[in-house]
């Protein structure tokens, strides 16, 4: 009989139960009557005949029960009865039920929370059609990701075109960029705001398969002509245009220029996908970047749609081959490779190792919770020996008893699962509030069917796996012993006790692992946040500006604006110093090649390069960077005077070791001898004199050793006097209190320029450690939960042991043992469990060092101090948990407990 047929029969049995029972009653009656008639025919009186017939048929109640069993009723009825009974018996011991449910709910809740994070980061499908064939193409240099402005960047447009032309795996590829621009609407009285604008060719919408909800996307002709047309996001349409269709006759102003709105893009670009929220799209053909001399200009965001049936691995293999050919053909591409990632995989990104760690930790929590549950059940079952024995004596089979006990566990776990779901919802909501701004991936954190299914499966399997063993041992009943008057209730035996000890040891081991991991992460994040950036990090406020070229034509106008603004900011009371700069620590995404005259360069790989920045003359003073040699920029450095440059210690170490760099000249830009074409974004390619050496400050990103750095004055380098500038202010007062004054001075100069991304450097650092902090907070909570559960476990076991041994301890006391002896006797038991657990836990922590090493910063995963501290903390807590029952043991009432015997 297959499963389906059986299910149908069971259903049939359930639905037609009454009918079947009536039918059988009738059958029995008719046959009984026949038997009686036959007996009567043999000459018995009617009464005697009916009696004889009933004798022949035996216990009809029993028969009908067996018949019902044949139809499968009993099993179904039994199930319902088991659950009803379970509910009643749990209600009768609310203490046990509460502890068990809370314990499990904690474990299940933690797992559900982490699963919903994994769900949001990995499992939920992307909002695009056929998301599995969408990939990002990143560019690598010598195997490492090259970084564009913020995120890993893609290949140059020239390379992308060569990839697309030669590839059989890629259907369509598109490179685009997202910029911060000053955007204003006809209706907005507050002036322009800085917003994310995507500069995209029309293929962008084809690759992502985005259909505008209103209007149309750009044409190729518009893109090539650079027409002033724009698409806006649905949320802009709603906030600024009241969702009216006549939005298509309106314009928006981007950087002081009018763009006709031609369409509305649905709200589907997830926040994690781009460095910033995109609210408008304008056509961009990147004509300059398509010239052969821009082959080295990488860092664009690149998306591709794979051909149907092609896996990212196949695309990776193919593109790597093409990249190798390009590298051989073009010197600028030497050492440059590609990485093809599923777009969906870029969502978890750097969080992946963290997720593994978190998933591992919550599994430990669940294991601990389940061990505790198993322990509680073992204790409860052995305390219920007599009840179980009575039920067995009355004819309940072992299977019946086990299924009864399992029903109880199942009921517990279902309630705990529901509670855990609620716990995880609150927890997740709190976490999103704490870290949400920094982790846009978690914006879509929600309880969907996957999370519900997960919770259900975890709850039920936890109860079945961990409920079965206690149920099996609990029902091994020696009837005679258990029912004997005065039989020890805990006589379920040594075997049972050993299981309980093992469970406690495991709990302690696992919570020590959690404790050590949390400790290491805490230290790591402290080091990361507390690391010396090479600057005076406190009281620094920064804001971003875009100085529109339409209004400020030419570098001189930009210089004038920046100098004016810098001067007026420095005049604000409470401002110690201020600088206008295109970069700020801890990260400078701009790299630049240079050459030291007189030093021949053998190959392209040997071209010196450094992080590059432009600023005014107040950079070093404002950031509090130590000046190690030479002088700072000063007012004598004018656009017409000799070009000057500041370098950092790392540059001196790498390129001027043993020499005094001050006074030396460097040529900034691709060395003329290397035949590298300069592209637009590079520099004036001029010779400049090093006038000073700064101390190293972080410029490669948080937690990374500083790279060589070059700093020049924007006033002397018109070609790199970019429209993007930050104002950075060192304040004497609370930094944010100066924001209104900063805005006021800015709008006095130009009311149309917004001040965006205002934050202190402290906040910038905090933001960049967001995912680490997220993990650390969670792991800290998990460790706390784990230790709490383990303490409950050890307390439970020792209390139980003390209760069992009350009489023995009383005898010992009576025979002259001192209270200290007794105390020690009990303490020793708890301590030995804790010690064994700690040893195993340390070994476990040691075993996970590799996983940990990937997420730790400047701390060894085997940091001895953390290991020792974790062990000590756990031992002390375990000792405290044991001390409570131990004191109880000492206070034992001699006479009372001896008389009990």
């Amino acid at each position: 009989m297959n499963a389906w047929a059986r299910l149908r029969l069971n259903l049939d049995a359930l639905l037609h139960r009454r009918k079947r029972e009536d039918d059988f009653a009738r059958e029995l009656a008719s046959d009984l009557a026949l038997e009686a008639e036959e007996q009567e025919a043999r000459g018995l009186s009617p009464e005697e005949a009916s009696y004889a017939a009933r004798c022949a048929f035996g216990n009809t109640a029993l028969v009908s029960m067996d018949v019902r069993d044949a139809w499968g009723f009993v099993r179904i009825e039994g199930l319902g009865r088991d659950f009803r009974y379970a509910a009643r018996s749990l209600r009768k011991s609310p203490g046990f039920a509460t502890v068990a449910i809370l314990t499990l709910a904690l474990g299940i809740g933690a797992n559900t929370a982490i699963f919903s994070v994994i769900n949001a980061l990995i499992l939920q499908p992307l909002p695009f059609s056929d998301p599995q064939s969408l990939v990002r193409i990143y560019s690598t240099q010598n195997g490492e990701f090259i970084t564009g402005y913020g995120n890993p960047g893609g290949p140059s447009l020239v390379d992308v075109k060569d990839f697309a032309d030669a590839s059989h795996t890629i259907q369509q590829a598109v490179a685009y960029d997202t910029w911060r621009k000053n955007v204003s609407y006809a209706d907005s009285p507050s002036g322009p705001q800085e917003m994310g604008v995507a500069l995209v060719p029309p293929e962008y919408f084809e690759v992502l398969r985005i259909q505008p909800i209103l209007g149309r996307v750009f044409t190729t002709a518009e893109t090539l002509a650079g027409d002033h047309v724009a698409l806006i996001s649905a949320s802009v349409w709603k906030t600024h245009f009241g969702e009216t269709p006549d939005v298509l006759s309106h314009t928006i102003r981007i950087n002081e220029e009018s763009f006709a709105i031609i369409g509305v893009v649905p709200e589907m670009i997830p926040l994690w996908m781009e460095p910033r929220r995109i609210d408008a799209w304008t056509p961009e053909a990147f004509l300059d970047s398509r010239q052969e001399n821009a082959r080295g200009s990488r860092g664009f965001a690149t998306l591709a749609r794979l051909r149907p049936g092609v896996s990212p691995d196949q695309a990776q293999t193919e593109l790597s081959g093409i990249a190798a050919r390009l590298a051989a053909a073009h010197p600028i591409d030497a050492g440059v490779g590609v990485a093809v990632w599923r777009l969906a995989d870029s969502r978890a990104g750097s969080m992946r190792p963290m997720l593994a760690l978190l998933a591992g930790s919550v599994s430990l929590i669940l294991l601990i919770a389940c061990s505790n549950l198993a322990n509680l059940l073992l204790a409860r079952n052995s305390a219920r020996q007599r009840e179980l024995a009575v039920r067995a004596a009355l004819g309940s089979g072992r299977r019946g008893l086990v299924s009864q006990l399992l029903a109880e566990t199942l009921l517990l776990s279902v309630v705990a699962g529901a509670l855990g779901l609620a716990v995880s919802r609150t927890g997740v909501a709190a976490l999103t509030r704490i870290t949400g701004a920094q982790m846009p991936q978690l914006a879509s954190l929600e309880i969907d069917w996957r999370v519900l299914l997960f919770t259900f499966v975890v709850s039920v399997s936890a109860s079945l796996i961990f409920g079965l063993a206690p149920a099996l041992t609990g029902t091994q009943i020696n009837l005679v012993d258990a029912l004997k008057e005065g039989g020890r209730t805990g006589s379920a035996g040594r075997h049972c006790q050993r299981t309980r000890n093992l469970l406690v040891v495991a709990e302690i081991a696992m919570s020590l692992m959690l404790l050590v991991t949390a400790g290491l992460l805490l230290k790591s994040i402290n080091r990361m946040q507390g690391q010396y950036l090479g600057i005076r990090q406190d009281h620094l406020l920064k804001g971003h500006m875009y100085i529109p070229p339409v209004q400020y034509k030419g570098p001189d106008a930009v210089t004038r604006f920046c100098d004016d603004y810098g001067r007026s900011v420095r005049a604000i009371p409470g401002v110690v110093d201020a600088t206008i700069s295109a970069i700020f620590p801890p990260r400078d995404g701009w790299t630049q090649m240079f050459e030291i005259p007189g030093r021949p360069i053998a190959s392209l790989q040997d071209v010196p390069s450094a992080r590059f920045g432009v600023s005014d003359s107040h950079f070093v003073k404002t950031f509090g960077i130590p000046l190690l040699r030479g002088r700072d920029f000063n007012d004598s450095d004018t656009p017409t005077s000799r070009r000057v440059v500041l370098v950092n210690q790392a540059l001196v170490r790498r390129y001027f070791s043993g020499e005094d760099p001050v006074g030396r000249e460097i040529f900034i830009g691709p060395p003329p001898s290397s035949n590298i074409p300069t592209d637009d974004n590079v520099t004036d390619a001029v010779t400049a004199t090093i006038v000073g050496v700064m101390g190293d400050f972080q410029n490669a990103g948080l937690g990374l050793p500083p790279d060589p750095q070059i700093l020049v004055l924007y006033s002397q380098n018109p070609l790199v006097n970019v429209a993007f500038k930050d104002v950075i202010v060192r304040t004497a007062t609370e930094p944010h209190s100066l924001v209104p004054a900063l805005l006021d001075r800015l709008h006095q100069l130009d009311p149309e320029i917004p001040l965006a991304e205002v934050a202190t450097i402290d906040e910038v650092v905090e933001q960049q450690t967001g995912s680490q902090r997220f993990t650390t907070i969670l792991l800290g909570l998990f460790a706390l939960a784990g230790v709490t559960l383990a303490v409950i476990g050890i307390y439970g076991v020792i209390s139980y042991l003390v209760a069992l041994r009350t009489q023995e301890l009383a005898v010992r006391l009576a025979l002259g043992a001192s209270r200290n002896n007794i105390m020690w006797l009990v303490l020793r038991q708890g301590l030995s469990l804790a010690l064994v657990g700690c040893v195993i836990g340390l070994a476990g922590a040691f075993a996970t060092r590799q996983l940990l090493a990937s997420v730790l910063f400047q701390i060894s995963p085997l940091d001895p101090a953390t290991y020792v501290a974790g062990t000590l903390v756990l031992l002390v807590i375990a000792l405290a948990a044991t001390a409570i029952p131990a004191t109880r043991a000492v206070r034992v009432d001699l006479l009372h407990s001896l008389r009990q015997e």
Partner: protein
Amino acid sequence: MPPKASQPAPSRSELLQGTLDMLVLRTLLFGPAHGHQIAKHIKQTSEEVLQVEHGSLYPALHRMERKGWITARWETAKDRNREFKFYRLTPAGKKQLAHEESRWKQTIQAMARIMWPAWEQKP
């Protein structure tokens, strides 16, 4: 509380159960019969050696009905003016009977070889 059916049954009834099914199926090969007739037939044909308990018969009948070996219908008996529940064999039941019969034969032969070793060697 009566002993529950889910209790592990003693091995003796296991054997009986197997044979009971076969005996009932074999009886129904003659044509439809109701429970009482089946019990009587087995008792009489075996010359009162095999007594079929009603307590085993009815559960067995219902189990076999559930398995689809037999079907049941209320019909008026020829000799009595009353309806009885008549069971009849289905094709699946016939197949089951053949299967159990051959198994039973094997068992008897195997037992015979052990109990009376010389029996087979006789000419």
